[in-house]
Every structure is written in C-alpha cells, then in structure tokens.
C-alpha cells in the first residue's frame, strides 16, 4: 500500500526546498488551479498565464506559509489574486470555440441538439465572462470547484453573507441574460 502524502507533508517538503515536493504539490493542485483560471478568464491561453503566475507565487512564497489557515484556502487566495491581477488583452474568442468543440464531441445526439447545446454553452460562458470580477470569481469557485459558502468566504476574506449576496446578484444577472435560452 502506498501512503499518499498530505498537503502538510508536501508543504513542509517545499519549505525545505525539496524539488520532489514541489512537483508533487503541483501535480495535486494543477487541475484545480487551471480550472479556476480557465473558467474565470474564458481563455485557455490566458488561463495558462494565470496558472503559471499562481504556481510561481506559491513556490516563491511557500516559506511564508505558517499554517495559520488551511493550505488549500491560502493557495486558492493566491490563485484568485492571480485571476484579478491578470488584465485581459485579447478578445474572448475561446469560449465560443470551446463550446463548438464540446458540441462536436458530444456523443449520441442529433446535429441539431449538438448545435443548440453548443450555442447555449457559448452563451452561458459569455454571460459569466461579462459578470463583474467579484461576482464572477464567486460563481467559478461555487460551480467549478463546488465550494461551500464558508469555504469561499475563507478564500476571499469576506463574510458568508457577502458571498451569498454576490452569488444572489450574479444569479439574477445571469438569469436575466439567459432567460430566453431556457428550453
């Protein structure tokens, strides 16, 4: 039986400068980080930049992690700040392309179903991309990572009530923008 190292073991290894620990911590969190980045930015190229930034900040600052908060919350905060810091320089073309590809890949559906699904997918992502950053990040943490209100509040450093309020406002905006798409 192979015992999997915990985040705490890996963090301590990173703090001692062990390259294997850095790689293991990366492997453990890379999908989460990239998912947040790509769903927040709506652009896979921008998401790579954000994920790169986040991991570089993690590795250069990990010695400063004292364990006062959960490692995951501390690291998510770095990821969120990287998302906020990144200024969009390109137009959002990828969500539409992604949606089209998703539609083409979906098995067992008619061509019309695939087209409708692809179109809806592009509109949902486009609507999310149009939200203000503070509402968009709450939506991404909630629906991409499935985090609770308490966990999101810990990451963003705000109250649970603030999280609920931002989610509520985001739902209303998205509901208005996508209301006509409901089938």
């Amino acid at each position: 039986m192979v015992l999997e190292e915990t985040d705490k073991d890996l963090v301590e290894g990173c703090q001692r400068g062990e390259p294997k620990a850095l790689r293991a911590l990366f492997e453990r969190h890379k999908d989460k980080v990239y998912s947040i980045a790509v769903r927040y930015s709506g652009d896979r190229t921008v998401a790579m930049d954000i994920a790169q930034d986040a991991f570089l900040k993690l590795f250069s600052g990990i010695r400063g992690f004292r364990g006062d908060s959960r490692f995951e919350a501390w690291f998510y905060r770095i990821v969120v700040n990287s998302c906020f810091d990144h200024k969009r320089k390109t137009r959002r073309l990828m969500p539409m392309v992604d949606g089209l590809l998703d539609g083409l890949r979906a098995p067992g559906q008619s061509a019309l179903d695939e087209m409708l699904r692809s179109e809806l997918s592009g509109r949902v992502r486009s609507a999310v991309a149009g939200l203000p950053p503070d509402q968009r990040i709450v939506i991404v943490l909630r629906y991409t990572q499935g985090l609770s209100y308490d966990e999101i509040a810990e990451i963003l450093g705000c109250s649970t009530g603030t999280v609920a309020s931002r989610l509520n406002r985001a739902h209303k905006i998205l509901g208005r923008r996508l209301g006509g798409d409901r089938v």
Partner: protein
Amino acid sequence: MSELHWLEMELARQLSPVTAPETLWGRIHEPRNPPRASSFRLWPIAAALLLTASGGVAWRISLARDPVSAMEKLAERELNGPQRFDLRSQNPLEIRAWVKAKTNIDIELPGSSAVRLLGARLIRLDGGPIAAVAYKVGDSPATLFVCRKRSGGASTAKHVFSRAESRLHTWTMRDQVFTIASAAKDPQAACQLCHADPAPGGILKVTRRL
C-alpha cells in the same frame, strides 16, 4: 423546474473542471513568456533584438570561454544603470525560494541587519540563468550576481577571489560564481549581505577568514 435550479444545473455543467495541459509544468520551470504583441508592433522589437544580438556576439563568445569575466562585465553594466526587479521583497527566505524556483541556484541569505534587501531579478546570459539580488548598504545600492560555473576547475567551499576592487568583488565557491557590484565608498561594506562584521583592513583578510 425552477429558474434558479435550471441556472445552477447549467452553470455546474458549463463551468465543470478541466484537466490542466501537460505543458504547464514546463511553463513554470521556464522563464516567463513575454507578453503577446500584435504583429504591427513586432518590427521595432525585432530590430532592437537584432541590434542587441549582433552587438553582443563577441561578448557571448567571451562568456563561453570565461564566465567570471562575463559576470564582471554584466555587473559593471548593471552598476551603471537603475536597479530592476522581477521580485520586490525584503524577505531573505522569499528571495531565496524565488531564486531557487526560477534558476535552481541556492543562495543562502542570512538576513543581516546591516543591509536592506530590495528584491531579485533573473538575467539570461548565453542561455544560462544569473540570479541578481539587489540590496542597499546604507544609502549605497549593491547587487549580488550568482551563476553556476560551467565546467572544470576544482570545487571549493571557500571563497577563491579572482577580483577584489572597490566596485566589484568576484569569487567562486561551491561550483558557483559570485560577483558583488557596489557603489559604496567602503569596499567591504557590500560583503555585509552575508558577513555582518567584515574584517577591518581590506578584503584579503576576509578571503583568509572565509
């Protein structure tokens, strides 16, 4: 189905997690990609790169032959220009971790109270990384440059000085080449980055002491 329930299901479906590309780890190990520029802005950059490259050919050839000399030339150039940073930090541990992550060069910074750390920068020279740690001794700026020795020569744990003048101190130690460039009046003041109490009477005493 209520509007909210439909919306939540659709968001969960459209914003589902994805797998990170295999190339991400390579991006973290390699230096940061330059920002993308539109094509009509590329020609002045290309021209500048061409000029820089042609002007630096001879220098790079000499670097391949003599990394110590190349480091000193770089240090002299940097000393005459403004200090620049990729990382601004006064924390020796953070600077050490950043340099280690970016260059795999380990620089032990004891965190002397005699100097004030400012930050660090990665410089690429002839394909190899050079870490530059900027700091101040009193009001005088100073920079420590570190790179790996290419090959050959004995490895030593002690300072072996190849140059010790008022502005540049260069030595090799543990398979790494170090150069301190400082504008401080006291030639040994910049050594306080690692040695809080430099020996009086000249750098040669420090050499023996180390």
